[in-house]
């Protein structure tokens, strides 16, 4: 299939190129005869005195947004008993605004329609959401006898994988583990330097290679170093990758296989998700689960206004538990995930 596509694209682009080339050639010829007096400016270079764009506000939208905030308060005010259409609309709006997504929201509404809300709408909604978060979420730190535990960190670009490793290195260090960090992001500029600072801050060991090195071999070396030095936990960073590229995911699967060989034993594969992400997080989870057997989620950037409700949908659909949440950029800004608090925060104004 892929060869077909490659050939198709090449041919199609070739045809474009050919037409473009014809124009260039055609254009050049008359230009030799009579060159235009002044070459017009490219589209983006308008005369320099051009005024700066004017700021235009959209008051109507502002008013709407201001009003929208109140819906969370309204939800808490809703009474007990049968749930009317208006109440359902309020619930729907609250859930959608928290990025819970249409499918999960519909499911909650159905259950409200079916069961009513004997103890108040907010309580009923909380109950339904809480029920979808009912699963074990402990992390495994100890490998089999004679092996080294490996935690692999995966996710799309910029979600907080590296920072989370820093925070977890601190946490696990405090819990008495000796941590080696593998700088497996050999793609992004200065990714290893970023991790070096975290290793410094947390006293963890760092294994790194040059930019462009094979990430699998970095992880392999880190496991080797851990075994040699009596460290018991390896954190493997990986380059951020989009979840719709089977090749990048294959590469990840390979890193995972390498990490799980020899003394290495992959105990956790943590998918890092950014709380500001919308419904795309669901497809991220799906793809990374398939490629790298994700065992848990770290939900970062919960210190902002984003609520990260999409993890409810992820737990419902894929059963991957959220294990930690990130609440800042500092080394201690990491908490174990607490479903009760999370649901409260989802519904809070």
């Amino acid at each position, binding site marked *: 299939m892929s060869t077909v596509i490659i050939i198709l694209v090449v041919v199609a682009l070739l045809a474009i190129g050919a037409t473009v*080339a014809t124009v260039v050639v055609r254009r050049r010829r008359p230009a030799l005869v009579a060159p235009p007096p002044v070459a017009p400016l490219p589209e983006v270079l308008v005369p*320099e005195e051009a005024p*700066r764009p004017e700021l235009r506000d959209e008051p109507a939208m502002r008013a709407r947004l201001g009003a929208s905030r109140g819906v969370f308060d309204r939800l808490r005010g809703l009474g007990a008993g049968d749930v009317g259409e208006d109440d359902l609309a309020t619930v729907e709006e609250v859930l959608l605004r928290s990025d819970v997504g249409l499918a999960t929201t519909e499911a909650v509404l159905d259950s409200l329609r079916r069961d009513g809300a004997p103890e108040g709408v907010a309580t009923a909604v909380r109950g339904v959401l809480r029920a979808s978060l009912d699963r074990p979420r402990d992390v495994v730190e100890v490998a089999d006898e004679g092996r080294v535990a490996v935690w692999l960190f995966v996710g799309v670009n910029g979600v907080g994988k590296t920072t989370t490793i820093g925070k977890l290195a601190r946490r696990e260090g405090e819990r008495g583990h000796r941590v080696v960090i593998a700088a497996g992001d050999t793609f992004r500029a200065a990714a290893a330097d970023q991790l070096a600072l975290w290793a410094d801050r947390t006293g963890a060991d760092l294994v790194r290679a040059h930019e462009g090195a094979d990430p699998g071999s970095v992880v392999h070396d880190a496991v080797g170093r851990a075994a040699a030095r009596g460290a018991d936990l390896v954190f493997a960073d990986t380059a951020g990758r989009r979840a719709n590229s089977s090749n990048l995911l294959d590469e990840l699967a390979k890193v995972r296989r390498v990490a799980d060989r020899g003394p290495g034993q992959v105990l956790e594969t943590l998918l890092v998700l950014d709380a500001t992400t*919308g419904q795309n997080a669901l497809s991220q989870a799906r793809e990374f689960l398939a490629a790298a057997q994700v065992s848990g989620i770290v939900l970062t950037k919960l210190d902002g206004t984003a609520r990260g409700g999409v993890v409810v949908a992820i737990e419902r659909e894929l059963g991957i538990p959220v294990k930690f949440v990130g609440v800042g950029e500092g080394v201690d800004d990491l908490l174990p995930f607490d479903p009760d608090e999370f649901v409260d925060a989802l519904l809070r104004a």
Partner: protein
Amino acid sequence: MFDALTDRFERLSASLRSRGRLSEADLDEALRDVRSALIEADVELSVVRAFLDAVRDRLRGQALSQSLTPGQQVIKAVHAQLIDILGGSALKITYAPRPPTVVLLAGLQGAGKTTTAAKLARWFAQQGRHPMLVAADLQRPAAVEQLRVLGASIGVDVFSEPTTPVEVARRGLETAQRIGRDVVIVDTAGRLAVDEALMDEVAQVSAAIAPHYTFLVIDAVTGQDAVHTARAFHDRLELTGLIVTKLDYDARGGAVLSARGVVGRPVVFAATGEKIEDFDLFHPDRMASRILGMGDALTLIEQAERAMDPEVVAESAGRLMSGTFTLDDFLAQLNQVRKMGSLGGLMRLMPGMTKEMRTAASSIDERQLGQVEAIIRSMTPRERREPALIDGSRRARIARGSGTTVPAVNQLLKQFTEMRKMMRSMGSGGLPPQMGRMAQLAARARPQDLPPGFEALADATRPAPSAPAPRGARGKKKKGGRVTPPKGR
């Protein structure tokens, strides 16, 4: 990215049936679907409402068109409204009368600011400008180093010093003035809109350098929160516009509509990948067409024009049409295509692609192209000219030489032969069907939207003797040269 929306609207068109006039019931049903599509695409709820109201106003009581199905009519209204929200027309970048033109980038953590700073620098260099980068993110570990590496890869100087962001920005600007740089791009640390201290800091940076352009860099996968972020940054910094990143994800990109809707400033640039060249001006009309599944021929042609060498292309195109296209030609073309950016990205832009093709294309990356190249390079010159020579034992040798497998070699040869046959059978007449579709689009587009070169496509299908008027725009755009990133991906 907007694929999902597109699919919804396609289905909508199939399900709507009515006669004479769109009834309120038709409208309700259609708009309910549009609403779901927008919500699934992460468009913020207030923006969804405003959008639906506007579409309803456009459609209410409208007579049914003779030539459009009701579904198409709704799509047309949605399309028009999308263009309105996405910004009407692209913002033109103008330059400060007294250089340097100062550009400030701000946004949430991990949105893509640093990468975008480098991409912008390269873009300005291509416009014939002399940009300088200023690394004012002193917060994230190794952020300065990251920008230095990126700057080095495109040959642009990076200024920074371990003081404060405000100081770095100010001194960076001074330095640029002193050494005669005409564009200064300031990268800042990622910050959350609720972080008062950091929002104050970026406001101070802005006050210190009085930027001509302040861009909010926003990730295409952002959810409902996009509006809070956009509004907060707009309140503090008076944004000139938005730059949307990660359009290469399969995200539906509703955040673009949300942020645009709430700040009323245009989306100016769009990033479609990790590579420095995966970046261009944002074109609202094209984006709206893309949302509706019409592909984006204009962007594609512009990219082709920028990255391809006309001589090389013309030569092998001639051989392609006459059926004497060789694997060497193919390799040359492949390398031209690679210069244009990621294959998946290109494929998405191509009109007439089915959903399956788009999905398949987006999963291809550099590595596979490398494989194809390795296979061809493992052939002897003679084999490349006459692929028919390649028998079983040669195939095994080639597979070994290229580190691939015999089936991979077989597949490549089979596809290549078929392609050649197809092109030959089309003979000298006309363009492949894909291109025909593009030419149609070209003919339909408003003339002022046509980039140079596009008219030629239209010409190619209806042979008109008049050569297009020289527009001269091209030469300059090519200035500054192309820069290859440190390594492919």
